[in-house]
């Protein structure tokens, strides 16, 4: 399924396109704003009222 060399090629293109750009270098900075879940959630907690687990389900809870 995976063509690793193709994957690496696209990765390098993305890296090059981001060189020198003012983008946060840590992915968690994009998504890790919910306390506790560190980006494992859908990233929408702040937009609703759920800053903590109240059944987002990403942990698998019913």
């Amino acid at each position, binding site marked *: *399924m995976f063509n690793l060399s193709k994957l690496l090629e696209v990765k390098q293109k993305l890296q090059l396109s981001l060189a020198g750009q003012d983008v946060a270098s840590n992915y968690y900075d994009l998504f890790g704003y919910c306390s506790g879940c560190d980006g494992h959630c859908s990233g929408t907690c702040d937009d609703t009222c759920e800053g903590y*687990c109240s059944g987002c389900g*990403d942990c698998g809870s019913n």
Partner: protein
Amino acid sequence: MNRETRQRFKSRFLKKSMSMITKKNLTRGVYITTNVTCNLNCVYCYEKDKTSKETFSLEDAKSVLTNTLRETTTRGTLINFHGGEPFLSFHKIRELCEWAWKQEFPENFTFFATSNGTLIHGEIKDWLYKNRKRFIVSLSLDGNEEMQNLNRSNSFDKIDIDFFVKTWPFQGVKVTISPLTIRQLAEGIIFIHNKGFRDIRANLAQMISWDSSSKDIYETQLYHLAQFYLENPNLDKCSLFKIPFHALNSKELKKWCGAGTEMEAIDIDGKKYPCHLFFPSVCGKEKSKHATNINFREIESFTSSECINCPFVVICPTCYGSNYIERGDIKLRDMNLCEMEKIRFKVVAEYEYKRIVLSNEKIIDIPLEERHKRLSILQGLEKIVADIENIT
């Protein structure tokens, strides 16, 4: 990066920094167990005892809120009405909320309830709509009509689904997949997308038995859904497809939620627990009593020796409360779900590969933030390609 994006980053950075310097930055949730009764009997329900007719004490609830809300936090407090079906106690809920809104508590607070939606009509619906900005309701809806009826006591026709979409457009919907509904998983998720929900939080039911035949069905259904998302790239994917592959870059083991660390759940008697699953009403009195001894900060406490060397451990979700209830230890995952999760990692990894690597988009046309996300995903995928290909 545009100004708006920069501002958003700044505010998030600020929140992260503050969380490091103050203990006040707990994500605080007060749980009020309104009643344990429910008008439905869902096939996967974890409530141990639904027979008690007892409902919460208004005086106790007022006392807990008075004590809690006089202390401020940076994020505010979420007051979660927890059932059973909480709206069986609507009149008490309304009285408590209206009392709280009249008090001049220094803390910001919002009321919240997860509901099966079947009672939200007439008077209750009118009141919720009027107070929709300070009382949020999350609907549990398990897919299309047949799925909902199979899992949740023939309740589809009793829910005004559009009301939830229109009243709380940013609130997620909770979808639980059971062995009875897994054959329609893709259809059910697409149905919910078509209903207009933006944030679909789907997961396999825990604390129930999954047999090996479900694995192939799950895989087929996820491939259907992957195809749907490839054909509809602008849709916000359901949570099954939001795997944090970027986390593979650090390999750092993190907890999956704030239970016992960043979050505290306060039961109606004022006692604090790691989360609501540790309440006596949920995990039983004896287990609940011992929950306070658990050290949630040590990796060894929340990751088992069986899982710690798994290449997928940092992307494999788990619910510590469920683990504790079912197996008596927060780190002991449901290994019944292990194979199912690996199937999901494989399908979603392939989906991401197709979406990012086989895309015909020109990089120059992709926004910077999205480029960065894609790069992080590919960096993670690169590390598990061989392991993914070994998943059968």
